[in-house]
Each structure stands twice: as structure tokens, then as C-alpha cells.
């Protein structure tokens, strides 16, 4: 036993007694989160305060008063942004959860394929991805023009414009947040709870409404936070669909105008709104418990016949696939069309391989791809390590400042990428305490670090949602059997969180590969990420070449997703889904 040696001097003994608690001691949570708090403080919180003080530097609170005057752009932008964000959450929620339901609860031909491509929209390359939406759904898009040609109308039909267009893009690119979270939660849920509801006479819809969805709350909260904040910080979509009265557009415009304080005011408001939303969600989630209280482990085998599902699910899924793949298909069309020949036609008339030839004939063509892969992978690993730890600390440990830590992690997500990048540059262009005296700007490490800071919230959130469903007594059992905290943590807790963690890591990786706004400010010539390569082609209006690059990126992410799908023992998943359909 760990009895203290009697020879220990009294003061040593006192200290050792205090530390004897080990992970039980009240210091443990602080020790665990201390490094993280430093990182977050240095790169997120401190810059955030700097931003705030910048916003009040010149004329005090006057910048903020603009948000309260009825005619101001500021207020309108705030409302528009809030509206877009709320609507995006709703739409993404509906699409994501429905897809999770169809794919995880039914088995049908082609389900695996859809599962593999389901995240492709999230992998759409920046700029070219947005362009593909325009080419599809806007006034000049294939669909409206096709319909116009079909019905011979004067104007394009069903063209998405303005806020509607933004919402389409948001729904497409962000529903994976919901899909992944819901899918992971569905897999981790105690099935007998659902059975109990059926047994009490509830129909499928009712069970969803009253049991499954509430039980998915942690996942929904996590996804809602991510989508809400992404929408709030979304830039390209409003830009392309001409919704200039949004917060991010105003930040950009004010920066270009050189009105840095006003831009900072916008950024601060963005942060404040995000914090309020985060706190509201935390409160909502915290009211209930979601951990299974069942005794033992119930079989994951439930068998329900459902003739409607058997037909509906495949049909719905085929439709979904078409819609999902449309933007990618559009990029493909562009990639195979000759630069600048596709103008007023509904579809391009001439096709060519030139764009790919152009890329492949460049000896350095693969460099951006490899760079992006490498840096995103590094960042994803970092996100997993830190994100999981923080999620654990915030959910399971009691310490002062728990809520603040939660807020700090998420703030990085709410800030526009440009702001994060600029914060990083100022933090690392000289050696200081937070960078351990290292100058990172101009080195390889700055980009992975940026991705890490930006995408940590994804992993953190999804891990935290996964953790909410896990019965803490499992970890207790491991501790009781003699496992140290660390061992219990990685052999039990992390292992059970894995679906959620993997989902988050995948998203973080995918986002890393596509990241542009921050990358463009900190990349170096040896670390050109793929997004910057695409962007360069875009600016010289070599759409086809850019699209060809985009296709490479999509293909690459597809491969990664396919592999990670295998990793997560898709065999059991399939079996499970089969049992549901029976």
C-alpha cells in the first residue's frame, strides 16, 4: 500500500499527503487544464481582449452604439447574421439528423456508398466550392437555366439569391456537423430506452420526438453551436450571394476601409453573441441527464419491420445523393470544360483534359496537396489530444472556471479566420512567453498551429457530446480495478467516446484541408496549402484549372473518409442497420 514512509520530514509528509489524492486531489483538474488555459489565453482570449480594446480605442463605446440605432448598417447586419445563423442551424439540423436517421437505421442497397460521400459537401474546396453553388442554383446556374430552357420562360426558374442562396450553401456545407454528431450519438445510445418507449405505445415519430431527439441533445447542442458560429463567421457565402449586411462582410469592409476600431467592434459583438448563444445552449443541455441509467448493457439488436422505410429510405437516399453530389459534379464539369468556353450554355459544350494536364505537368503541382494533408493531419492529431482532454475536464471535473474554459475554446470558432490569423501573427512573429520564445511565423509550424486553434472546437464539441452519453460508473469501475486515472481514461473513456472523437477529427481534418482565410495570411512558399493554390488559379480566372485542383482535393478527402469509415468498424454498423430494417 501507499503508506507514507515514517522517515519523511513533516513538511514533505504534508505535501505528499496532499498529493496522495493523486487524480482525486482538488488540484488535479487545474493541473490537467493548466497548459490548455495558457494556450487558449495566449491565442484566443488575450487577442480577443486586444480586439475589444482596439474597438474602444478611438472613440470609446460609440462604435457599439451603432448597434442600437435603428437605421444603422450595424444593427441590420447583426440581425441578418443572427437570422442566417438561426435558419442555418434549423436547416442543417433537419437535413443532418434525417440523413443520420436514414443511414444509421436502415439498410439498403448503396447505403455504404452514401455513407462514404455524405461528407463530401463539407470537403468542397473554398471559393471553387462556392462557385459551384452559383453555377448550380443562382441566376446563372444550371438548374434555374435548365428549367428556364425546359419551360421556355423568360427568367431563370427557382434561382436562389441573397439570403436564400446563403442558406442553401450553409445547409450543404454544414449539415455534416449534425449528421456526424447524430450518427455517433445514435450508435452510442442505450437501445433499451428506445424500446421502453415503443413498449409504452409510442409510435416511431413520437419516439423520435420524445426520446431519441432529447437523448441526442448533447449532440444537437454541439452541432448547433458549431453551425451557429460557423454561419455567424461565414464569409464566402454572403459574399457570393451578395448579402453584404452581415457581420463578417462588415468586418471585412471596415478593415479595407482602414477603420480598424469599427472592424474590431464588429468582431467583438460577434464574440459576445457567440458567448451568449453558447451559455444558453449549456444551460439548456445541463438541465437533464443523458447517461444511460440502465443496469448492465442491453443488446444492440432491435428488430423492427418497416415496409415504408424499406422503400422510402432508398428513394430518399438516391435523391439525397444526387443533391449531395451536384456541387461536386459541377466542379467536375468545370474541370473538364475548356477554360472560359462555358458561358451562356446550360452545360458546357466542349470537354477537355487540358486542365488536368496543366496541373500534372507542373512538377510542383502535388506539393500543395501534400502540404495540406500533412498540416491538417498534424492539426487534427493535436485537436484530438487536447480536445478530448478539455472535453473531459469540462464535463467530468469540478473546478473553478469550467464554464470559462468552455467559452474560451469555442470563441476561437466564432472569430473570423482573418482575425485568428492576425492574432497568431502578432503572437508568433516575435518570440514571447506564449510561443515559448519561438518565432513561428515563416516556419512550417504556424499553419498546423492555426488549424489547431481554429478547429479545436470541433473536436472538443463532438467529444464532449459523446462523453455526455457515457455512464461515469464505467470509468469508476476501471479505477476501482486499480487503473490509474490516465489508464482508465484511455482504455475506457476515450475508447467509448471514439465514434464522437473520430467524427470530430474527421471534420477538423477536412476543414483543415479546405482552410483558406487564415492560411492565406500565414502560409510560406514551402507550405502552400491547396486552398491557396486553388485561389491563385481562381484569381487568374482559370476556373477549369482551379476546378481540377478542387477535384483532386475532393478525391483526396473522399479517400480519407472512406478509410476512416473502415476504421470505425463499419461492419458492425452495417449489421446494426440491417437489424433495424430487417
Amino acid at each position, binding site marked *: 500500500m501507499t503508506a507514507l514512509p515514517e522517515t519523511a520530514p513533516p513538511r514533505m509528509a504534508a505535501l505528499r499527503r496532499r498529493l496522495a489524492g493523486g487524480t482525486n486531489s482538488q488540484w488535479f483538474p487545474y493541473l490537467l487544464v493548466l497548459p490548455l488555459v495558457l494556450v487558449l489565453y495566449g491565442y484566443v482570449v488575450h487577442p480577443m481582449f486586444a480586439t475589444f480594446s482596439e474597438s474602444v480605442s478611438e472613440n470609446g463605446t460609440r462604435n457599439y452604439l451603432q448597434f442600437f440605432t435603428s437605421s444603422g448598417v450595424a444593427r441590420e447586419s447583426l440581425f441578418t447574421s443572427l437570422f442566417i445563423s438561426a435558419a442555418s442551424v434549423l436547416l442543417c439540423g433537419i437535413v443532418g439528423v434525417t440523413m443520420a436517421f436514414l443511414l444509421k437505421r436502415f439498410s439498403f442497397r448503396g447505403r455504404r456508398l452514401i455513407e462514404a460521400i455524405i461528407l463530401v459537401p463539407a470537403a468542397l474546396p473554398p471559393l471553387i466550392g462556392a462557385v459551384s453553388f452559383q453555377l448550380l442554383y443562382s441566376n446563372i446556374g444550371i438548374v434555374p437555366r435548365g428549367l428556364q430552357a425546359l419551360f421556355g420562360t423568360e427568367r431563370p426558374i427557382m434561382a436562389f439569391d441573397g439570403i436564400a442562396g446563403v442558406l442553401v450553401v450553409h445547409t450543404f456545407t454544414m449539415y455534416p456537423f449534425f449528421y456526424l454528431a447524430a450518427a455517433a450519438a445514435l450508435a452510442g445510445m442505450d437501445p*433499451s*430506452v428506445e*424500446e421502453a418507449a415503443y*413498449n409504452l405505445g409510442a409510435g416511431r415519430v413520437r419516439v423520435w420526438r420524445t426520446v431519441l431527439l432529447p437523448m441526442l441533445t448533447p449532440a444537437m447542442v454541439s452541432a448547433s453551436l458549431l453551425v451557429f458560429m460557423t454561419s455567424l463567421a461565414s464569409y464566402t457565402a454572403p459574399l457570393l450571394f451578395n448579402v453584404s449586411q452581415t457581420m463578417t462582410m462588415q468586418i471585412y469592409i471596415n478593415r479595407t476601409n482602414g477603420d480598424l476600431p469599427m472592424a474590431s467592434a464588429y468582431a467583438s459583438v460577434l464574440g459576445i453573441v457567440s458567448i451568449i448563444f453558447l451559455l444558453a445552449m449549456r444551460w439548456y443541455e445541463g438541465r437533464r*441527464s443523458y447517461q444511460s441509467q440502465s443496469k448492465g448493457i442491453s443488446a444492440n439488436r432491435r*428488430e423492427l419491420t418497416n415496409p415504408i422505410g424499406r422503400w422510402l429510405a432508398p428513394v430518399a437516399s438516391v435523391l439525397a445523393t444526387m443533391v449531395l453530389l451536384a456541387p461536386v459534379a459541377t466542379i467536375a464539369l468545370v474541370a473538364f470544360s475548356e477554360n472560359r468556353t462555358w458561358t451562356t450554355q446550360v452545360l458546357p459544350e466542349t470537354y477537355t483534359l487540358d486542365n488536368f494536364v496543366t496541373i500534372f505537368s507542373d512538377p510542383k503541382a502535388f506539393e500543395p496537396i501534400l502540404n495540406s494533408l500533412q498540416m491538417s493531419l498534424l492539426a487534427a492529431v493535436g485537436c484530438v489530444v487536447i480536445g478530448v482532454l478539455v472535453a473531459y475536464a469540462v464535463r467530468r471535473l469540478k473546478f473553478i472556471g469550467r464554464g470559462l474554459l468552455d467559452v474560451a475554446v469555442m470563441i476561437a470558432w466564432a472569430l473570423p479566420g482573418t482575425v485568428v490569423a492576425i492574432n497568431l501573427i502578432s503572437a508568433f512573429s516575435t518570440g514571447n512567453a506564449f510561443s515559448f520564445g519561438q518565432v513561428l511565423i515563416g516556419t512550417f509550424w504556424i499553419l498546423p498551429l492555426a488549424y489547431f486553434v481554429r478547429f479545436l472546437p470541433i473536436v472538443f464539441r463532438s467529444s464532449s457530446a459523446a462523453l455526455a452519453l457515457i455512464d461515469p460508473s464505467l470509468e469508476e469501475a476501471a479505477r476501482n480495478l486499480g487503473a490509474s486515472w490516465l489508464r482508465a481514461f484511455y482504455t475506457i473513456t476515450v475508447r467509448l467516446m471514439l465514434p464522437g472523437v473520430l467524427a470530430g477529427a474527421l471534420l477538423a481534418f477536412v476543414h483543415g484541408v479546405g482552410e483558406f482565410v487564415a492560411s492565406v495570411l500565414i502560409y510560406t512558399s514551402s507550405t502552400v496549402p491547396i486552398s491557396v493554390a486553388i485561389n491563385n488559379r481562381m484569381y487568374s480566372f482559370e476556373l477549369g484549372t482551379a476546378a481540377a485542383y478542387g477535384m483532386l482535393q475532393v478525391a483526396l478527402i473522399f479517400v480519407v473518409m472512406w478509410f476512416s469509415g473502415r476504421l470505425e468498424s463499419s461492419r458492425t454498423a452495417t449489421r446494426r442497420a440491417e437489424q433495424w430494417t430487417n
Partner: protein
Amino acid sequence: MIDVRLTAVSKRFDKSSDAAAVDEVTVTIGAGEFFTLLGPSGCGKTTTLRMVAGFYFPTSGQIHFGDDDVTHWSPNKRDTGMVFQNYALFPHMTVAQNVAYGLRVRRVSRTERDRRVSEALAQVHLSGYGARRIDALSGGQQQRVALARALVIRPRTLLLDEPLSNLDAKLREETRTEIRRIQRESGNTAIYVTHDQAEAMAMSDRIAVMQSGKVQQVGSPQEIYYRPTNAFVARFIGRSNVLSLPVVGAGENRVEVRLSSGATIEVGAATGHGLTEGDTALVSARPEHITLAGGDEESALRGRVTHVEFTGMATNLTVDCDGTEVMAAVIDAPATINVGDLVGLRLVRERLWVVKP
């Protein structure tokens, strides 16, 4: 009237293996009957119950509710109320919300619902716990919530999977009276799984004894106790001596066997026992049906006492009769009996019964 009928129901979890969790079970449960499934751990009780509830589909066989073939109905159409062995409470709801769930689904009005919920909570001695979160309850309290949730909807068929296993004796007795009362009043059918034989005996109209997925015997508690079909049932329900004795004569409902002393006795047997002279019959004799015999009695087993245990009302003896250990629970045993004594044991003839191996 027949309420629930299982016809040759089997369930194989693993298509490749040939062990079935439930194997060709055929039982018929009358309306209003209190029917118990009894059997050792892992014998297929829960699996059977889950097929009745609709969570598993039989690999083969049919399930009827009255005249309806419900084999493939979805669970929510069946109007069964199940207490899950693992409780399966809704963790995101309070105690009262859990109990009220089934009533909500049934669109019971608010006032009526509140009334019934608090009534149900009172029945399981949890009044005042309505607003608690499930994770702030003790194990036994959770089990009672699960019970209240199933009872409150007064389902056509109650399915109770060890609903009292985590309760103390006092509470258990009260609750079991309560369950029985509710079931009788509503006239509904109940299928009950328990591992407590006394409970099964006390509560049930009929009992099905299962082993390795197969039903060994179905009958009233008395039938099962006094006329077990086979050695397993005889031994599983209470304690029993199963003696191998040579058959010297056989009738339709009786068999004549010879004891080691040479005396022959007639023993009851089920119709169609199929034994003839020369066979060896297995005869079940419960300890309390064995008494001490006078030294000169002919039809007695003789042996040496190997163990004596005084339990108050009766004295438990273990006697070695020619290598067979025989247990006897003797009332009014002389205080002088000691280990090593030679005793004679008389079998209470009317209570002996021939069982299958």
C-alpha cells in the same frame, strides 16, 4: 379464453451456431392469467418475453394475441407494458415524467394523468419522488419507477422481467401483493419472470419451467412441485432427492419399484411414462416427504447419517444410503440423532413421483 399463444417459437441469435436461445417454445396463456417463467440464469426467459413484447422476432414460430397473429407487429401496437430487467428508464425525464410517458401516449387528460401517476408512485412507495432526476435515485428506487411506469398504463399484457430483484423482503412482499391486486382488478394477463421460486409459487396461476431455451414443464405451482416431469424440474424447484430404482411393475399412472431393502413400493407417474419391468425409474422424493422409520420397517431405506443441521422447525439430515446421498427434513427428530448413526428412512408414498431423466 386464450390471450397469448406461442407456437413453436424459436430464437437463434447466431445463425451459424446451432444453440438456440429459445427453442421451440409452445405455451398458451389464458386471459387474466398470471403466468410465470422460471428457470436458471441464461435459459431464455428474457428472450421469450422480448419476443412477446415485439423487440425480437422469432427465428421461427408464431405468436398470437387472441386471434391476431402478432409475430411481426411492431412493439407499440401490442399494448404490452414491460418492466425491463435493466429498467430502461428515460434518463432525460424526471420520475414523474417517466411514469407519465405511457399515459401521454394514450392521450390521458392532464388531471387524470397526474392522479394516476401519483397513485402509481404511491403503489411503489415513491410518493414525493416525482420531481427527482433518475440519476439521483438508488438502484431499488429506479426499479420501482420502472415498475410504476409499466403498471400505470394498465396494459392488456403485463410483462415483468424480474421486477423486484433489487428490493428488500418487506418491500418486495408489499409490492408483489400490489402487482397481483392490480392485475386481478384489471383482469389483464401478466407474464412474470422471476428467479425467486417462493415468489413464483406464491403469485402464479401457472408456471413454465425453462432450461436451455426449452420449456420443461408447464403447470400450476402444485403440479410443478409435486409432479415434476423430470429430474431438472424436481431439483430446480426446491430441493429434491432423485433416486434410481429398478422397476418391477408398471401401470398406466403408477410404477412399482424395488428399494434396496428389497421391499417394493408403488409410485405415481405421468400417463405415458413408458417404463416397463426391468427399466430403472427415477423417483423424486422431496426431503420433507422423507421421515424417520422405525428400526423394523420393511419398506425403508437404510443408511448412515453424514450431516445434521437443526433449522428450528425441522432437522435436515443427509443420509448415505448405499452410496446415494439422501436429504431428509425431519420434523420432530429425536435430539439424539448424530452423525454416524444408522437410521431408517420412510418415503411418504403418496408424494413420490416418477420423473424423466
